[in-house]
């Protein structure tokens, strides 16, 4: 890419090529349409300019033409829609084997936490060829995680997680921008995505780590007294959290929800919003007690509980007979 006058962005993820292909298709169609209109208008305007002795011929219209130039463009646009939707579906569906990275945005910086415990600010190191899923939240206003070289963007909201995934293909240093206006230094809220060869990445990973994220979460889980109610041995006052992640949970009001990251997060900050069937709304809120980073650690810990015994994680979320006999594998 010319650094003086770039006319095309760097291409460094598995998505870039696909988005570019669709963009080129759109440019071609739009180019043809524009040329058609420009040439028609120019030719007609010159050919039928006023000359002495010739009057305009009045034409009312043509229903066939009208139907034609309504339907044909519509079918062309349908191809835009389908192709665009296919790419969007891929962009919004992280592969199961993705490495997870937590991102906390705040005015005006990006805070990154790797599962292994490395933390970064305004920089994200990733290896080439690895699916990376970002689990993002904001501490204040809405931001947007935008990496032009990867052709991806996702708004980052306070109070919930949004996710984004990519697979980098070319080592290098790429712009990270905040794309949603967020106040004074919006334009300064940028950084770099550093894409590294796997061995360089491993070397980078080896230095500077404190403790893996889920370990931090486990400590917090004990410190905050979560384990008093959410017990793993006997039934506590709260649901057993083993292997609940990404499984359906039956609620007291009869609804079923998937226990995803947003659900776990909400259950910590606003426990009474979704009460698990068979439990009482006795859990206090942790809003204002845990920071977004600590929340991420707790979520990572709860998720890690789902890993070891995938076979036994079957769910039987039947309505409980009585609140005194709560069932396993539920979260409050």
């Amino acid at each position, binding site marked *: 890419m010319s650094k003086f006058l770039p006319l095309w962005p760097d291409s460094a993820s598995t998505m870039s090529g696909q988005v570019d292909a669709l963009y080129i298709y759109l440019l071609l169609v739009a180019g043809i349409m524009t040329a058609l209109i*420009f040439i*028609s208008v120019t030719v007609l305007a010159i050919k*039928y300019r006023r000359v002495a002795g010739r009057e305009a*011929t009045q034409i009312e219209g043509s229903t066939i033409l*009208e139907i034609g130039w309504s339907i044909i463009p519509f079918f062309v646009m349908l191809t835009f*829609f389908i192709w665009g939707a296919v790419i*969007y579906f891929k962009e919004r569906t992280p592969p199961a084997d993705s490495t997870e990275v937590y991102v906390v945005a705040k005015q005006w910086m990006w805070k990154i936490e790797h599962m292994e415990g490395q933390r970064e600010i305004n920089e994200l190191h990733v290896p080439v060829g690895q699916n990376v899923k970002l689990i993002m939240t904001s501490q204040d206003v809405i931001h947007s995680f935008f990496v032009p070289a990867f052709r991806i*963007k996702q708004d980052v909201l*306070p109070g919930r997680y949004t996710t984004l995934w990519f697979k980098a293909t070319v080592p290098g240093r790429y712009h990270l921008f905040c794309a949603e206006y*967020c106040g004074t230094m919006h334009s300064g809220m940028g950084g770099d995505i550093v894409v590294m060869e796997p061995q360089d990445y491993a070397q980078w990973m080896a230095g500077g780590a404190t403790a893996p994220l889920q370990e931090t979460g486990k400590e917090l889980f004990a410190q905050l007294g979560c384990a008093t109610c959410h017990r793993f041995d006997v039934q506590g006052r709260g649901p057993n959290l083993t292997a609940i992640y990404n499984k359906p949970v039956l609620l007291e009001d009869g609804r079923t929800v998937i226990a995803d990251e947003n659900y776990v997060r909400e259950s910590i900050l606003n426990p009474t919003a979704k009460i698990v069937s068979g439990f009482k709304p006795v859990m206090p809120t942790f809003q204002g007690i845990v920071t977004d980073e600590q929340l991420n650690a707790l979520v990572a810990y709860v998720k890690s509980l789902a890993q070891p015994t995938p076979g036994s994680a079957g769910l039987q979320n039947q309505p409980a007979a009585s609140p005194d006999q709560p069932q396993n594998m539920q979260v409050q």
Partner: protein
Amino acid sequence: MASTAVTANQAPKLNYLNNGHSLKSWLLTTDHKRIAILYLISVTTFFFLGGFFAMLIRLELLTPQGDLMQADTYNKVFTMHGMIMVFFFLIPVVPAVLGNFLVPLMIGAKDLAFPRINLLSWYLYVVGGLLISHVMLTGGVDTGWTFYSPFSTEYTNTKIVEAGLAAFVAGFSSIFTGLNFIVTIHRMRAPGLTWNRLPLFIWANYATSIIMILGTPVVAITIILVAVERLFHLGIFDPRLGGDPLLFQHLFWFYSHPAVYIMILPSMGVISELITCFSRKRVFGYNFIALSSIAIAVIGFLVWAHHMFVAGISLYAAMIFSFLTFFVGVPSAVKVFNWTATLYKGSITYATPMLYAFGFMGLFTIGGLTGLFLATLGIDVHVTDTYFVVAHFHYVMVGGVLMGYLGGMHFWWPKISGRMYPEGWAKLSALLVFVGFNLTFFPQFILGYVGMPRRYWQYPPEFQVLNVLSTAGSSVLAMGYLLPMIYFLWSLKYGPIAEANPWHAAGLEWKTTSPPPTFNFDETPVVTWEAYNYDEIPDKELEAPVVR
């Protein structure tokens, strides 16, 4: 020119302009034509104010560093640019100036249905304008015109409530105008002027009015909710208080997307008038153009979430809104095709209004087609919130709306002022606007795809060349906009006196004197012809009206 004889005659006919000269006769007028002039003056003032802020933005972006002003100042400048241009220029400009002047004239009525409410509309606009000026002079507001929560409700200490109030009050001005137009078009058409004989400008304003009265109350409610959350910390949008930030975006775009059609539809109506007149032809596919305006107004309400594809809405919601957005592309395309077909076998002249119509077709084609890029999910993810979006909506809202407005101003200026504008200067200005516009905004498409986010005060150095081009273009564009202002004023005193129908155009507005008398027609016209009956206008009148 035959009409110069009129000036020699010492007793000029009484018209709406010389019927009373006192300030009171203007400020308390209920004459729709005088109210149109009041709007013309105030809207033009805000246009140049908004344009001044645009120049500040372009000057700051001349260099990658933030050096001309502070970051906070820059944020306030682009917010004021957006708010003034959207709420105080683009939304009112064509309906409130040209629509106000022309709707009664075109349908053979003496005035709008509610002349006092019409005056009230203008006063509300002025109150809104004074409020936004107050905000501007006492510290400004830094949220962008989109007011996204929770930034606007909890995180900024600028004048949100006051700025919201300005938009709220101006919104009612727009609601009243819409109400007035709808009732007038239903109830006050001249005998014989059936719905399928209406000029397409009337159809366009009718469709616009529907959006004004259905959409504007929603943004008014949204503004109240923002104010309530800000003042009383009731949790509506801020998740810390139990609210939902996406709710704000849904409510905001439910109005603000259709608002784009409030801006563009009346200009499309102008283009239909210009192309028929300067081709001396009936419009091709009258019914389809008329109904496409209504279709745009209706479908326009079903596409708002296409502004939110990366905001955190569900995958399937995004797909539905993307699909619906393509539907709105069809009626817009139909209009462009019909205008092009109208040229076929016409007898075309290139007076300034027609040059603006050609310009409109070019810029709107590019603006509309790039809209399809943004409706395409996979592309939108990459280019939304970048300069690609900025370029796209300027092509539609400035390229489209302003070309239509300026074309209309030149076309009806003889009717409004009774004077002709200088054709040579006008052609130059049309050329400057077209070239300057493309030079300003075309590089921004490239900037956007390369990845420059919008609302950036500083940017990586590799984006500089394209930004310099854009700034250079904006100074050409500014010349193009200043020029008409100067020669229109000049023509008020020195322009040749206009005939009743200098373009030999069809349409009732040309069947009364220029300028029209206070009650428009000496006798209520009876319509027995279709719109754009250029075949029935006598041959001798076809001899070109050459105005220099």
